[in-house]
């Protein structure tokens, strides 16, 4: 209490009343209204399902009430007919009293619809693990989930293998002028829309794309390779789209490595393999961790690349989530799947920070 009071005073001293109000209010709205509450609500969604038993019961009752109402309506119409045919005033009076009674009963029946309608349009919620159990039991969805995980790991590892030499080259081998030119070559594709980058690879990898033409012309394959329906298209496209998430963090850490250390190691007789495994890679650890986290996260969480390069027979987990929301109309199920994806990413982040002994603070630099 005391420390938060002191903190508040510090804010007032430094920023004044109006600025303090702006800062605290804006941060509160952002954290609560945009980050935490939406996430909590999504998790909440994932733990309940529409109580189908209660909903079906309500629908049955509605049907019962409807027949009862129909019968009453028929009786009222019959009575009205009798009324028109009736001769003396006493009989008319008797019939009109009967109609009034029937109408009262019809009104009662109609009132009975109100709670039932609510039970159907806003059905009762049954909390439980039903949505998660569904994922565990559905073999197709389960295999898509594991495939997403394995392929994302493959993409991450491939990107690391491809990017480490480039990052090392830029940070330690060439002068700044050349590095700047290479950087432009690397950044240019990154500024082009992700969809267009992926489309460029669709042109390369399709049945009569450039790679298949080249492979056939060189006599390596007889028939065109179907890159799009095995996972290779997705892997190639993702590595292409996300390499920069790997290059930059590794470059940033390698850039701080004193080149004299490498010279010293070389003078003392270390070969290039030892220089990398004992000096450069240990130094670049935080960068490697960050690169792997970012690459894995965007790979596992992307919708764009697999939807373009994935073909129809290799769905991605995000595509399953999407179809729960917009084709299946079951947001609860979709939220459960989304939460599973989020947990996967969190587990990966935690594993990497442990493995490479970096802190979250270092990540976003």
């Amino acid at each position, binding site marked *: 209490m005391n420390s938060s009071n002191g*903190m508040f005073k*510090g*804010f007032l*001293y*430094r*920023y*004044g009343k109006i*600025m303090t109000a*702006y*800062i*605290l209010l*804006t*941060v509160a*709205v*952002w*954290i609560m209204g*945009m*980050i935490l*509450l*939406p996430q909590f*609500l*999504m998790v909440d*969604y994932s733990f309940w399902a529409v109580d189908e038993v209660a909903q079906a019961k309500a629908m049955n009752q509605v049907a019962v009430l409807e027949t009862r109402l129909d019968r009453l309506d028929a009786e009222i119409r019959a009575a009205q007919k009798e009324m028109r045919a009736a001769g003396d005033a006493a009989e008319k009076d008797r019939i009109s009293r009967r109609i009034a009674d029937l109408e009262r009963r019809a009104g009662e029946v109609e009132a009975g619809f109100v709670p039932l309608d609510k039970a159907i349009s806003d059905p009762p919620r049954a909390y439980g693990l039903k949505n998660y159990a569904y994922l565990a039991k559905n073999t197709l969805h389960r295999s898509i989930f594991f495939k997403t995980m394995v392929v994302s790991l493959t993409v991450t590892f491939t990107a690391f293998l*491809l990017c480490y*030499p480039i990052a090392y*080259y830029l940070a330690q*081998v060439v002068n700044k002028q050349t590095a*700047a030119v*290479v950087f*432009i*070559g690397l950044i*240019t*594709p990154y*500024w*082009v*829309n*992700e*969809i*267009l980058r*992926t489309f*460029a*690879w*669709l042109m*390369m990898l399709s049945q009569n794309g*450039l790679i298949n033409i080249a492979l056939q012309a060189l006599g390596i394959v007889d028939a065109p390779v179907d890159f799009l329906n095995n996972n290779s298209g997705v892997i190639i496209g993702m590595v*292409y789209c996300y390499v920069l998430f790997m290059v930059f963090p590794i470059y940033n850490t390698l850039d701080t490595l004193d080149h004299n250390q490498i010279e010293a190691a070389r003078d003392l007789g270390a070969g290039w393999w030892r220089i990398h495994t004992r000096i450069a890679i240990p130094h670049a650890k935080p960068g490697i961790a960050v690169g792997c986290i970012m690459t894995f*996260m965007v790979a596992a*969480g*992307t919708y*764009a690349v697999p939807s373009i390069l994935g073909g129809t027979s290799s769905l991605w987990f995000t595509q399953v*989530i999407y179809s729960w*929301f917009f084709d299946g109309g079951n947001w609860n199920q*979709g939220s459960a799947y*989304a939460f599973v994806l*989020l947990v996967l*990413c969190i587990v990966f982040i935690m594993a990497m920070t442990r493995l490479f002994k970096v802190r979250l*603070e270092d*990540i*976003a*630099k």
Partner: protein
Amino acid sequence: MTSKKILSLFTHAYVVFFLCYMLLPLAIMAAAAFNKHSIPTVMPWKGATLEWFAILFNDGILWKAVVNSFIIGAGVICLSIPIGLAGALFLMQLSSKARSLFYAVMVSPILTPGVIIGISTLVFWNTFGVSGGIFLTIIGQTTFISSFCMLLFMARLQRFDKSLEEAALDLGASQHQVFFRVVLPFLRPTIITAVGIAFLQSFENYNTTLFVIGAQSTMTIRIAGMVRLGLTPEVNALALIFIGLTVTAAIAYELKRRAEKRRQAVQKEAAKQADAMAPIAPGADMVPA
């Protein structure tokens, strides 16, 4: 020595290969914009044409989506810059323990897959009866773009000399004056950078937007639709324009950077000469470069 040479040759060859890997697909995509063939390809080449550009400029649906993208981008800038700035100012004032906790929460949107930000935004606003559209897209994108802006502001504020603020306060400036006359001018370059980055992030976002855009469309959403459902080289024409803009911007940036460097070098040289010629001279900047 020779093994070193081979290694160096190998490294250079690899870099060239890597650059080809990055740039060749884009070059081919751009080249296909001029092919008469009705599907996007460079082989077979059926002759050069500008027809696809004409089709692109007359594509009303696409241009409407582009307008939406600009509206959303403007909205995201208007929200994420103030939020990111407030977040950075907030964190700078916290003790280190509280700071790491809040920091983790405030950068978490960057580390969360975009689809999940889209879903949580959709679910949250649905309880208030707001369904997908331009408004929700602005909100969803702002959630994580604010984190990027915050990081930019924090990096800049870490280099801020606090004694400037203290001095201004001591000399009787109100906190308001300090903020608007000292802190904000110091942050100006970062604000410009943040505006640019926020806009680019918003403009090219797909994964979050997909879940919150509803029946509306943005340019990226529209392109994805064109790519997935039967397409013509119109997309290639658009890609060529994008690549042209990017390359121009990159070259302009690099030229500007080099000119800046040269200017600084010249200034340094002039200062050195001035020092050498007149060690007690009042100002080196009086000497013409």
